[in-house]
Each structure stands twice: as structure tokens, then as C-alpha cells.
């Protein structure tokens, strides 16, 4: 037993070594000038000409933050897993895939070479497939893993094509070279931007390719924390921000991005509000929050989007790990199985409370400041005439404000339903082991610590606080009155049937097409060889008449033959 645990700590040590190496590499880059400082060297300077396949490790301050976020959350997840999943027979593959996941994420954010970025991007897709399907004995996990893999893979075509177009347009696959070239004359902005948008929509689970993320819930909870916070979905937003300079001028792209973000943030928030499962609710919340980040990028402020990505990564990891502690205590992620766990799980309660506060966007957590930045940047976009049209920006702002209200409401609802009220059938619950609560405390502290030095905008700050307070107040009021805080509206609990086009109709269409192809092959193409075979068979029947197996008939034929020969011979001579 202790030997097993000891071996598990070896994976923690491996992850820690990776984290320390990454930190040593990333920390000096943290405070370099602006977040997205474009390369200001001489054009055609020291960078190798295209195509170059060396990793070209290069960190912008934003990438450095993401590297630290990824390895930090990864290390905490690894520690957490020793207790959460320690007895799993396939722990070794689980722990090593997490390390591979982190390496892939570092490759994505730490390289300037687009092909290396693509490799990291795809390896992350593979890792998420493996980890979501870790419990492959259940059909649900297999389906979720295959869905995540297929949907992100389809969207990844966008990235491949985008990279090819970038390479063709600017003559280099190196981002710094691209920055130099695009700084003077951005070209094909709309094509590149739309292709990048497709990739981002798939990776970051935006409408209409958002359905894989909630269905990825059968994966182990620490993995959900990793995917939702620090790696997989973060890569999509990072890409959108990193390549923003390429398509910033294209109204089409930023408008499309704003529309996608607006729809997704409302959709995710509404669906998070009606969920009966804590983990799934948090998944929809991630969808909604990612849309907020994309909204900020569409509003020409990638910095705000990335800062919200970082703070969201911390508090969403905290919430998912807290959710894992609750599942550990009650054995289910259904909200109906929880309740009244405040007293028996104090550490989980307090740290998760910090997480929910940050999700709701309340002072003084990092979530408040970064959401404020996002709102501020969208608000700024309403009155400048480049990129996003003013009307679109107002619509996006309205969507974001409603989302702020809804986010506070569902965060409060989840918090109340998990920790307050009567416990179902007197379930007492118990605190999780310290290897699980430790990461929670660290993340809770980080949620506060990240708010240090964040910019603050008074107008939007007051507005979001008021809206969030209204959201919290509404739910608390309903709860106090003893009213139900569950929204049981049929179409909403069925998640609006948005999954149907992709999970039912698309397979039906594919099946129909393939059936037609099979029919064509069997009926039309196969007709020729079948006709040939039939002909040969009929010929063989005719020839087979002579093979009667009747010796007398053979002898008759011989005699007749002889007679004919004789007659012919006589006649001819």
C-alpha cells in the first residue's frame, strides 16, 4: 500500500521537476514589456527563413504566465490524484499522460514555430482523448472521449489550413517572421482569421462545436480540472490572442468571433443554471467563461482575454478539484446527493467558496478584476470605429452583462445546493485527505494573490458588481423563502437539443451517404464482375451436359464419331 503510494509520488516528483524547469525558464520572461510585444528587430533579421522546424522556443510574458499556470495546475492535479485516484490499476498511464499533456501545452505556448505549435496542439487532443476515456470500461467515457477527439479534430483542420495560408502569405512559418511581415502589410486577414476561428471554436468548445466539453465529464475529475483550466481549452483562447495581430483589421472575423462569443456565453450560462449535476454545471460554466475571453479578444483586447484566462484557470481548477472532494465524500456529482456539507467539509467549503466568489466575479478575487477588464474592453469597443462595429459591440456588451448576472446566479445556486440545506438521507460527508485539500488551499490563495496589481475600471467595476450582487441576491432570496432554485424547463434541461445536429443528424447523413455509396458499389460496380461470373457459370452448364458420368453415353458418342469418320472417309475416297 505504502509502496504503491510511494510510486505515485514519483510521478509527482517528475511533474515537479518539469514545473521547476518551466518556472526557471518562464519567470524571467514574465515582466518583459507589454504582453504582446511585437518583434521590433530589423526585417529579415536573425530568424531563419521558412520553412524551419526547430522548436524556436520563445516566450512572451503572456506565454510565460500560461506556462506557469499549466505546470502549476498540473502539479497540483498530480498531487491531488495520488489521493483521488491512487488505487486505480492504470495509474501509471494516467499520471504519465498528464505529464505529456503539460509538455504539449508548453510546446503550444512556448514556441514561435507554427508547426511545433500544431504538434503540441494535436498531442493535447490525443491526451485529452486518452484521459477523458481513462475509465474506458464505461460506455459513457468511451463516447465522450471519441466525441471530444472527433470534434476537436475536425476543427483542427482549420488550424492546419490557417498555418498553410500564413506560410504562403508571409513566406515563413515562424511567428516572429510573420509579425515582421504582417507589421507592414497584413494580408488575407479574413481567410486566416476565419480558419483560426474554426480551430478555436473546436478547441475552446464554442458554439456550435461546444457539446464535447460537457460530454467530457466522465473523465476523472482532476483531469477535468486540468482540461478546463490550464491546458486544452486554454490553448484555443491563447491561439486566438496570439494570432490576433493577423486578423485584427478584418471586420468579418472579429464580428464572427463576437457573435460566436455572445451566443456561447449566454448559452453556457443559461445551461449552467439549469444543470442538476455539479460537474456538468461547471463544464457549461467553462464554456460560458471561455466565450467571455473570446469576446474580449474580438473587442481588440487580447490582453484582457488572456488575463481572464489565467484567473479563470486558477479558480476553475479550484472549483473542479473541490467538486472532486465533494464526489469523494458523497460518491456522486449529482447536486441531489449533496447538501449540508458545510460543517463536515470545512476546508473544501471555504476554498470552494473562494472559487465560487471568483466565478461570480466579486471583489476582491482575481475573477472580479479580470472579468472587469473583459467588460471594460468590450465597453471600449463600442465607441471606436476599427474592427468591431459599434452595434455588434453593444450586443456583445449586453450579452456579457447578462452573462455576469447569470454567472453569479448559478455560482450561488451551486454553492447553496452543495453546502447548505438539509443533507439527503442524513449523509454526513467527510473531509477529503490532505493531498486533496492541500491543492484547494493553494489555489484559493492564488485566487486572491492574482488580484494584486490588476487594473481596475470604476464604471464597469461597479456595474459588474451590481449585476453579480443582483444575481447572488436573487438566488439567495429564493433560497431563503424556501422556493426551489431549480429551473425545470424541458428544452433547457435537454440542453436545447443543440447536440442533436451533431450527434444524431450528422451521423444519420453520413450513414445515408455511405449507404448510397455501398449500394452504388454493390448494384452498379459489382454488376460487371457478377455478369461475367454468371456467363461463365451458364457456359459451364452447357459444357457440363457432355460430362454425364454415363459410360454408355460416352461409348455411344465414340461409336457415332467413328461412324461419322467412316462415312466421311468413304464419301471422300
Amino acid at each position, binding site marked *: 500500500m505504502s509502496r504503491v503510494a510511494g510510486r505515485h509520488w514519483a510521478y509527482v516528483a517528475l511533474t515537479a521537476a518539469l514545473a521547476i524547469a518551466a518556472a526557471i525558464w518562464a519567470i524571467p520572461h514574465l515582466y518583459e514589456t507589454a504582453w504582446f510585444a511585437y518583434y521590433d528587430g530589423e526585417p529579415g533579421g536573425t530568424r531563419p527563413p521558412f520553412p524551419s522546424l526547430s522548436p524556436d522556443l520563445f516566450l512572451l510574458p503572456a506565454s510565460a504566465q500560461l506556462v506557469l499556470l499549466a505546470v502549476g495546475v498540473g502539479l497540483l492535479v498530480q498531487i491531488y490524484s495520488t489521493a483521488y485516484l491512487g488505487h486505480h490499476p492504470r495509474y501509471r498511464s494516467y499520471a504519465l499522460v498528464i505529464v505529456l499533456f503539460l509538455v504539449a501545452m508548453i510546446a503550444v505556448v512556448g514556441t514561435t514555430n507554427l508547426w511545433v505549435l500544431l504538434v503540441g496542439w494535436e498531442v493535447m487532443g490525443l491526451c485529452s482523448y486518452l484521459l477523458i476515456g481513462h475509465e474506458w470500461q464505461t460506455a459513457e467515457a468511451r463516447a465522450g472521449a471519441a466525441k471530444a477527439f472527433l470534434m476537436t479534430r475536425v476543427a483542427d483542420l482549420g488550424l492546419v489550413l490557417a498555418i498553410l495560408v500564413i506560410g504562403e502569405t508571409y513566406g515563413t512559418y515562424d511567428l516572429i517572421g510573420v509579425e515582421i511581415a504582417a507589421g507592414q502589410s497584413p494580408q488575407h486577414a479574413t481567410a486566416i482569421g476565419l480558419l483560426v476561428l474554426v480551430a478555436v471554436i473546436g478547441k475552446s468548445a464554442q458554439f456550435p462545436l461546444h457539446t464535447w466539453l460537457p460530454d467530457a465529464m466522465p473523465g476523472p475529475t482532476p483531469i477535468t480540472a486540468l482540461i478546463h483550466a490550464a491546458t486544452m481549452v486554454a490553448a484555443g483562447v491563447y491561439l486566438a490572442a496570439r494570432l490576433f495581430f493577423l486578423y485584427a483589421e478584418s471586420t468579418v472575423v472579429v464580428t464572427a468571433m463576437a457573435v460566436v462569443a455572445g451566443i456561447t456565453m449566454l448559452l453556457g450560462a443559461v445551461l449552467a443554471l439549469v444543470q442538476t449535476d455539479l460537474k456538468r454545471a461547471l463544464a457549461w460554466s467553462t464554456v460560458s467563461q471561455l466565450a467571455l475571453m473570446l469576446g474580449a479578444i474580438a473587442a481588440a483586447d487580447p490582453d484582457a482575454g488572456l488575463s481572464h484566462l489565467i484567473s479563470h484557470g486558477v479558480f476553475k481548477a479550484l472549483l473542479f478539484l473541490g467538486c472532486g472532494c465533494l464526489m469523494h465524500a458523497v460518491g456522486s456529482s449529482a447536486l441531489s446527493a449533496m447538501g449540508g456539507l458545510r460543517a463536515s467539509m470545512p476546508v473544501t467549503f471555504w476554498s470552494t467558496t473562494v472559487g465560487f466568489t471568483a466565478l461570480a466575479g466579486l471583489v476582491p478575487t482575481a475573477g472580479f478584476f479580470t472579468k472587469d477588464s473583459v467588460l471594460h474592453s468590450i465597453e471600449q469597443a463600442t465607441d471606436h470605429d476599427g474592427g468591431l462595429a459599434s452595434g455588434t459591440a453593444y450586443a456583445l456588451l449586453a450579452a456579457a452583462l447578462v452573462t455576469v448576472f447569470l454567472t453569479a446566479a448559478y455560482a450561488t445556486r451551486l454553492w447553496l445546493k452543495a453546502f447548505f440545506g438539509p443533507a439527503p438521507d442524513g449523509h454526513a460527508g467527510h473531509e477529503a485527505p490532505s493531498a486533496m485539500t492541500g491543492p484547494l488551499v493553494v489555489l484559493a490563495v492564488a485566487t486572491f494573490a492574482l488580484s494584486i496589481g490588476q487594473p481596475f475600471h470604476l464604471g464597469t467595476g461597479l456595474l459588474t458588481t451590481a449585476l453579480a450582487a443582483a444575481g447572488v441576491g436573487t438566488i439567495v432570496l429564493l433560497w431563503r423563502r424556501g422556493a426551489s432554485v431549480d429551473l425545470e424547463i424541458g428544452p433547457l434541461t435537454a440542453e436545447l437539443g443543440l447536440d442533436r445536429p451533431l450527434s444524431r443528424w450528422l451521423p444519420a447523413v453520413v450513414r445515408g451517404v455511405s449507404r448510397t455509396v455501398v449500394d452504388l458499389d454493390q448494384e452498379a460496380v459489382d454488376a460487371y464482375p457478377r455478369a461475367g461470373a454468371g456467363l461463365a457459370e451458364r457456359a459451364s452448364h452447357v459444357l457440363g451436359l457432355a460430362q454425364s*458420368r*454415363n*459410360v*454408355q453415353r460416352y*461409348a*455411344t458418342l465414340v*461409336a457415332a464419331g467413328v461412324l461419322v469418320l467412316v462415312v466421311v472417309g468413304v464419301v471422300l475416297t
Partner: protein
Amino acid sequence: MPLLYPLVLAAALFGIGVYGVLARRNAVMMLLGVELMLNAVNLNLVAFDAWFADALHSGQVLTLFTITIAAAEIGLGLAIVLALFRALRTVDVDEVGR
């Protein structure tokens, strides 16, 4: 006596023999057909021997050989038919072939 008479008779016998071998299903009758063909040949041999007025009478000698061999042959053939009948309770060649 002109040569034609025995030759026509021999040809008729041979034809009946061929018919018996090719058309009859009874093994005994097929053997009889074979005998008829042999004896048609014998008749030919004797007829030509007389017509050539051969001093050595090689035709008649050959006929004696043929009769001997035919006797052996019919003995063997009837033995086979008997064995067939004992084993299969039939001498119909179609039945036996099946």
C-alpha cells in the same frame, strides 16, 4: 456362295451387338451384345478365309483363338455380374453407376 451374304449377316450381328452394348441397361444383355460383336467378327474371319481359299486356314485358326478368348471373357464378365448382383441386388448398370 457370294461373299456378300455372310458379310451382311456379320454386319447385322455387329450392329445388334453395338446396340445391345450402348442401349441396354442390363449388364447381362450388355455382355451378350459384346458376344454378338465378337461372333460377327468370327463370321467375317471364316467368310474371308473361305473366299481367299487360304491354304493355311489362318482365318479359321484365328477364329478358334477368338472363341477361346471369348469364352474366358464371358466367364470373367458373368463372374463380375454375379458379384455385382450379390453385392447390390441389381444388375442395372445405371443403378450400379450411382
